[in-house]
């Protein structure tokens, strides 16, 4: 057990040392906050968004938490792809070290969670204060949802990358998928803005339900039924994690 913990921590530490150079971290934190805040506040100032959506939220509220959730999902998805497809560099070295494949996965996931807390969750807390929606229950539930999302989308990345022989092709595919997820998950516009044919794409996109659930937690308002959100998030998440684990097992030392 001790060995697993120290090895996982070594992997996490490596990822954190690479990603979290303090000045880069601080810059990206400020940059991300300013961008999201100004887009939201900018649209708030000239557009009475609440008239056009059934949620009765300001655009800045509607947009901010959702875009952070989307960014977290995307970075976990890419980290999942890298975990099995990019067998170069450090991963190649890891495979000749006496370490179990699940310790590698565990270490990578811890790094992703810590990275998420430092890069996105700090901004989420700031937004909850700005919108006067801060409570410890909200914060705790949002944290649980985001950690669950990390596991689900990392697993999804592993699973989807198993269909691609080359890492580069998997990355290219992920950028198309990212675009699709951005526009068809209710991050930018409420679901009821669109016609029925497009709504079908929304309903088929699992991220839609994660985002709706995050809005329920943050603002007690959502576009869909809360129980439907919970059901889809749980079922889709569990299936993704199972498939991701199976494919990870197959791919990592193959």
């Amino acid at each position, binding site marked *: 057990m001790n060995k697993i913990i120290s090895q996982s921590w070594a992997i996490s530490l*490596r990822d954190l*040392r690479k990603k979290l150079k303090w000045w880069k971290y601080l810059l990206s934190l400020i940059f991300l906050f300013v961008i999201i805040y100004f887009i939201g506040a900018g649209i708030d100032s000239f557009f009475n968004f609440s008239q056009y959506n059934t949620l009765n939220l300001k655009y800045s509220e509607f947009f901010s938490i959702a875009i952070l959730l989307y960014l977290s999902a995307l970075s976990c998805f890419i980290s999942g792809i890298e975990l099995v497809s990019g067998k170069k560099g450090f991963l190649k*070295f890891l495979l000749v*070290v006496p370490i*179990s494949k699940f310790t590698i996965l565990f270490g990578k996931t811890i790094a992703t969670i810590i990275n998420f807390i430092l890069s996105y969750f700090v901004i989420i807390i700031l937004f909850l204060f700005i919108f006067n929606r801060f409570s410890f229950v909200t914060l705790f539930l949002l944290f649980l949802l985001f950690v669950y999302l990390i596991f689900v989308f990392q697993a999804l990345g592993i699973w989807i990358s198993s269909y691609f022989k080359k890492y580069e092709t998997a990355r290219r595919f992920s950028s198309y998928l990212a675009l699709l997820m951005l526009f068809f998950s209710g991050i930018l516009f409420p679901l009821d803005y669109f016609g029925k044919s497009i709504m079908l794409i929304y309903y088929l996109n699992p991220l839609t339900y994660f985002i709706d659930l995050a809005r329920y937690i943050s603002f007690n308002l959502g576009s869909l039924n809360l129980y439907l959100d919970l059901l889809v998030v749980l079922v889709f998440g569990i299936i993704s994690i199972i498939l991701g684990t199976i494919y990870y097992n197959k791919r990592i*030392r193959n």
Partner: protein
Amino acid sequence: MIKINKLSKSFGKIQILKDISLNIKKGEIFGLLGENGAGKTTLLMVLSTLITPSNGDFFIKDFNNRKNPEKIRENIGVVFQELTLDEDLTVYQNLDIAARLYGLKKEERKERILFLVNLLDLGKECNKLVELLSGGMKKRAELARGLINNPEVLFLDEPTLSLDPKTRNNFWDYIKKINLKNKTTIILSTNYIEEAEKLCDRIAIIHEGKIAKIETTKQLKKEKKLNLYGVFLKYTK
């Protein structure tokens, strides 16, 4: 130290290694000499447990690759052909992370890193980012990481590829030093004849996935009354 029994490896329909059998003694520097695509790297990757063989098996220190791959990994070090260090970390950070992965405690880590830094003259470069190092220095840092767990067997995959002659010569001195100081068994793949000649106690000439000849370097030259280049050409026709 290493016993290989009828090892084969295929990727789809292409057979890369064909029935390789050989024994390597403790403390030996063993060379795998062959043309590009002969199967040297594949053999090293199989022996380092990075890829599983299609047929056959091998033992390192009595540990079988199919039954105890973890035990094998504890006893080996690998220096890959390409750079596998993190370029955006310092040499020290790279070594520290590798040491943690092998379960070395804080004091042991410091001691081991210091030992390797001195052994391979990396002192000045220790706190520099890997991306700022020259090709030769990067290779030396890779070598240090390969030795972090004090392995009994060290695999070097074309370690001096793309290094200039002077740096290559220096690197050979370090390999000899490691072999002498720690009695480390070294398996080295190369396509440089002079590298094999200068470093190796024995050489296996690999041609199209098979071992064409195994002999001591001296014996190879004596037997055919040729220089090693002539012997190499003879067995890789």
